[in-house]
């Protein structure tokens, strides 16, 4: 078994109800170096927050807090 302990959702454990699209640094933690959104299986994010996270990242991309892609 690679994943011995089940990861907990970052947003559930920190009790952040709303994922802020203005916090680019935080969002970057859930993205690969190529700026792709990580799947929840990698980050342990729960389904509810993964949906919110994806929306926040897409907003942040539009406002250039987070890149669409990196070369």
């Amino acid at each position, binding site marked *: 078994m690679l994943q011995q*302990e089940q990861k*907990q959702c970052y947003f*559930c*454990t*920190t*009790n952040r*109800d*709303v994922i802020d*699209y*203005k916090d*680019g640094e935080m969002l970057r933690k859930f993205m690969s170096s190529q700026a792709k959104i990580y799947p929840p299986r990698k980050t342990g994010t729960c389904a509810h927050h993964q949906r919110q996270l994806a929306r926040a990242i897409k*907003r942040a*991309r*539009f*406002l*250039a*807090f*987070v*890149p*669409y892609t990196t070369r």
Partner: protein
Amino acid sequence: METDSKNYEFPYLLPPSIPESEVLMYSRKLSKIIEDTGGKIRHTEEPKKGKLAYEIKKERNAYFGWTTFAMAPNAIALLEKKLKGENLLRFLIVGEEETQVRPQILRTIPSRPAPTHIPAHRPEGPEKPEEKLDLEALDKKLEEILGK
């Protein structure tokens, strides 16, 4: 009218060509546009200079500011039209989610159930003889089979 207004958030990027002293003036101008369209300003964050993740209109930096306001949903389209005429790099109007700041309570991590195989390893008085008996019985059976 008042009752069916919704809360919105309006983040925007101002071009860096604006001198720092005039940035506040711009944000006030935007607030005035919102008010003129029938919005009610709730909170204004003054624009701050920041780096962009990628170039927008050949700019690498921009002033980022945001405003929250309440407005009737049917006036949003008009506001967007008005804002498009402004000197903005980018802007977004999004419905504001309810921000309930709960106190930080760390959830207790459900600890994995204590390993159950350890007690099984512990030598227990009543269990051992049974095993031995079983083994002996097995041996007897085997011998019987082999003997035949």
